[in-house]
């Protein structure tokens, strides 16, 4: 048996909680962490006679999401009731969308191992969240704080083929949501949830295999791990002559396993029908255009602009635009030092390297964008060399302070003054007659020795270009 005889087919359903202040159908707060049932009212508790009234901002956010995923935004999309019984579902139905969602038929682009990938978006629809059941011994309590919190469910086409691709797709969607400012993208608090539909089939087989749905995944790393585990589990099943059962499985990150959520699969008939309490959602083209005009620059557009205006490679542009904060940081550095090329390598290599080591986000960087810009300006005007700059940067990162202060207090200024350098060079030539003789007899390799000596005597502060020129002149 070989895993490579199989291919996997993956589709993702991403639930993004919209960062509106109030709920989707009532004015209760959406704030996370309130006391049990603090953020509830007769409407989100589903009391008799209460009616939903849609939050206009949530609709605007959903339209923004639709546009950012290159979807068609539907005029007069319809809220539908999804009927099922569960204690955390206060009305006995969830208000969602079924036929005619607010957005459909889009695509998302991203890079995977340097290659550009496109994943189709089947649909994005608005729905309300349910409450939360809390099991305590023999009894169950329900907290309805989340009841009717606005969500957008983004459904990808089932087209992804690897766990890495699925995770990268999810990261990209999260980044878009953060750029839009419509979701805080916090997987741990559940403001972004990701369900993965996974199936496998023998290569070259046309039919899709039976799929399972993975839930309870709260990080991008776990998306990869859970899908990887599930692919292998399914292949193992098929290879041993068993069948994959269509079911929902929970990912247990501690054991790195997926576990069946229900002992027997229940046939759900949600009896969707248009909610008669709500009107169709108007999204006429002029409104959509107006919203579009207020949209921020999205990652892909920003990356293209970086390539064009800063001569950044597309790989680098991709890294720099992964988050809005990162892109902003980069642009702030550039505007301070006006050296885009320096800025690219310093942000990506030096800064990100250090941030990764100390597990910090760019927004938490101890070195601000203007401080880094000032450091790069010192390289640009020849005050310090790139090598010295790294030392200065380390100090800035660990102890704070401005580049100029550190350079001055530690006497790190580059020596570019000819007379000072000439004095040192002459001293080196005088004290090393053997090497001078070797050089003059044609051993040009020895030249490096002289450079090293000059640098040693100047503690690395000599301007290397100048040292080269002057040494050649004096040795000739």
């Amino acid at each position, binding site marked *: 048996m070989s895993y490579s005889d199989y291919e996997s087919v993956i589709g993702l359903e991403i639930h993004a909680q919209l960062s509106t202040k109030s709920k989707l159908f009532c004015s209760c707060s959406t704030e996370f962490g309130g006391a049990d049932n603090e953020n509830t009212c007769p409407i989100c508790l589903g009391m*008799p006679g209460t009616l939903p009234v849609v939050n206009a901002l949530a609709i605007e956010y959903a339209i923004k999401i639709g546009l950012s995923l290159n979807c068609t935004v539907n005029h007069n999309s319809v809220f539908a009731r999804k009927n099922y019984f569960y204690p955390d579902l206060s009305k006995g139905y969830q208000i969602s969308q079924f036929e005619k969602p607010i957005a459909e038929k889009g695509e998302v682009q991203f890079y995977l191992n340097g290659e550009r990938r496109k994943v189709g978006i089947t649909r994005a629809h608005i729905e309300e969240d349910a409450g939360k059941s809390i099991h305590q011994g023999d009894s169950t309590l329900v907290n309805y704080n989340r009841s009717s919190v606005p969500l957008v469910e983004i459904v990808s086409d089932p087209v992804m083929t690897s766990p890495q691709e699925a995770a990268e797709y999810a990261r990209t969607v999260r980044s878009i949501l953060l750029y839009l400012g419509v979701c805080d993208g916090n997987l741990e608090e559940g403001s972004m949830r990701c369900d993965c539909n996974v199936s496998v089939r023998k290569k070259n087989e046309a039919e899709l295999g039976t799929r399972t749905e993975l839930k309870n995944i709260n990080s991008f790393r776990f998306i990869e791990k859970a899908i990887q585990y599930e692919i292998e589990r399914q292949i193992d099943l098929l290879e041993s002559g068993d069948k994959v059962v269509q079911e929902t499985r929970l990912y247990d990150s501690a054991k790195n396993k997926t576990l069946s959520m229900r002992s027997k699969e229940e046939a759900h008939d949600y009896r969707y029908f248009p909610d*008669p309490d709500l009107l169709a959602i108007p999204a006429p083209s002029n409104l959509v255009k107006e919203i579009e005009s207020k949209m921020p620059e999205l990652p892909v557009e920003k990356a293209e602009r970086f390539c064009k205006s800063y001569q950044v490679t597309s790989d680098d542009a991709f890294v720099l635009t992964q988050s809005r904060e990162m892109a902003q940081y980069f642009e702030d550095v550039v505007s301070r030092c006006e050296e885009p090329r320096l800025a690219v390598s310093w942000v990506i290599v030096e800064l990100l390297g250090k941030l990764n080591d100390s597990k910090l986000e760019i927004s938490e960087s101890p070195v601000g964008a203007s401080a880094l810009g000032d450091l790069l300006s010192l390289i640009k005007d020849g005050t310090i060399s790139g090598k010295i700059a790294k030392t200065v940067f380390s100090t800035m990162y660990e102890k704070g302070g401005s580049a100029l202060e550190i350079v001055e207090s530690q006497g790190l200024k580059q020596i570019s003054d000819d007379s000072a350098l000439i004095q040192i060079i002459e001293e080196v030539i005088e004290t090393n007659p053997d090497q001078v003789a070797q050089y003059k007899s044609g051993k040009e390799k020895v030249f490096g020795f002289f450079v090293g000596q000059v640098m040693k005597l100047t503690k690395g502060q000599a301007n290397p270009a100048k040292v080269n020129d002057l040494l050649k002149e004096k040795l000739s």
Partner: protein
Amino acid sequence: MKLDTPIHQLVKKLKLGELKSLDLVRESFNQIERLDSDIQSFVLLNEKAEEAADKVDQKLAQGEDVGILAGIPIAVKEMFCVKNMETTACSKILKGFVPPYSASVVNKVEAEGAIIIGKTNCDEFAMGSSNESSTNGIVRNPWDFKHVPGGSSGGSAACVASRMVSASFGTDTGGSIRQPASFTGVVGLKPTYGRVSRYGIVAFASSLDQAGPMTLNVRDAALMLEAMAGHDPLDSTCSKQPIEEWSNQIQEDVHGKVIGLPKEYFDDGLSDEVRGSLESLIGSLERGGAKFIEIDLPHTKYAVSSYYIICTSEASSNLARYDGVRFGKRSSSSTDLDALYMNTRSEGFGDEVKRRIMLGTFALSSGYYDAYYLKACRVRRLIQEDFIGAFKKCDAILGPVATTPAFQIGERIDDPVKMYLNDIYTLSANLAGLPGISVPVSVSDKGLPIGVQLIAPHFMEQTLFDIGKKIEVLTGWNQRCPDVV
């Protein structure tokens, strides 16, 4: 008796200080005490009514503007939530539910000075046409205790007919205001869908439900609508159409008015008695200057089946929230979640409600949705178009409210289909969202009232009041009253 007097006259006297709201409220309670043990129109009385009346009297004495219903005693159907008053929709499943909020329409009339006397009996969840499916017992028709008052707003009709209050709230999903109004000899108005907020009214079928007034005369109905209508930010389906002073604008002259008579409404199912009284009314209106034309509403024959698919589908979903988890009844004998649901709902709902939940659940099920629910919605569209076509030719439509006057208690309760056919003339107005009114016309040989139904284009309630008022004048109905009163 003061509660016999039209509301606008009572309000005038109250404002002039010739009358006290407290006296009206006491008369109301006296009348209830005297008659309601037989009629059973009330399920709950407001203990704070006298206190509220006293407050209104004090404000009036100080010359404050209290509103267009200042000090007037009214009753509300048990489907309306009233803050801090038990609200059960006459179902066991909501026993003990005390809402921390009032229906918007209750707030509106209270803001206009009305005094809520109590909550009235109705069919369980407003599902019925005879008020026999209430968990609070049957309501008797004040004209003859052996007969039903109609339904589902039976209590609201009976309490107005027997002068226990000046007016009441009903809800009308397929005729539940107009049919009991006809059976008890009062005026019952179902406004245009969206005219009155549905917020806080226990939902039966959301796309059909509409609250409206039941009164002793047409002008009172218009005045009540002024207080009840208007946009409500809590109800997305509530219209922003302006409210007018309909009650002051009534023109009882019908000269030049064109009234359509749908031939489908005068078919073989109509009893001779009702047909006879409508024909004589048509004659009188013609002599008064109205012009009658025959119109076609060709899809009428599909109305009952479409209506019962749509209303049961919506009901099956609307009633899902009564699960024993958050409020109302919870079956005590359950050991797991499925049992909790099943026992609570089996014990809490009555037979008619269960029947409708099952019908609606079936109609929405995957595999049946297209054949039932979707098709019913298409027929509904055709019925709406029938009316739009008809109103190009006439100002209003006149027809019967029900096939017969009030039937006897127990007569139809075992035959649901026969009961459903009761709504045949009224439910089309709900499917099309049109305003309809029932105005009393005459009494049958057995002494039971017979009403006439008028239907107008969307938001043209004024037309109903104008023609309705003329009918009132022509028939001299105002003088009539059940003997027990």
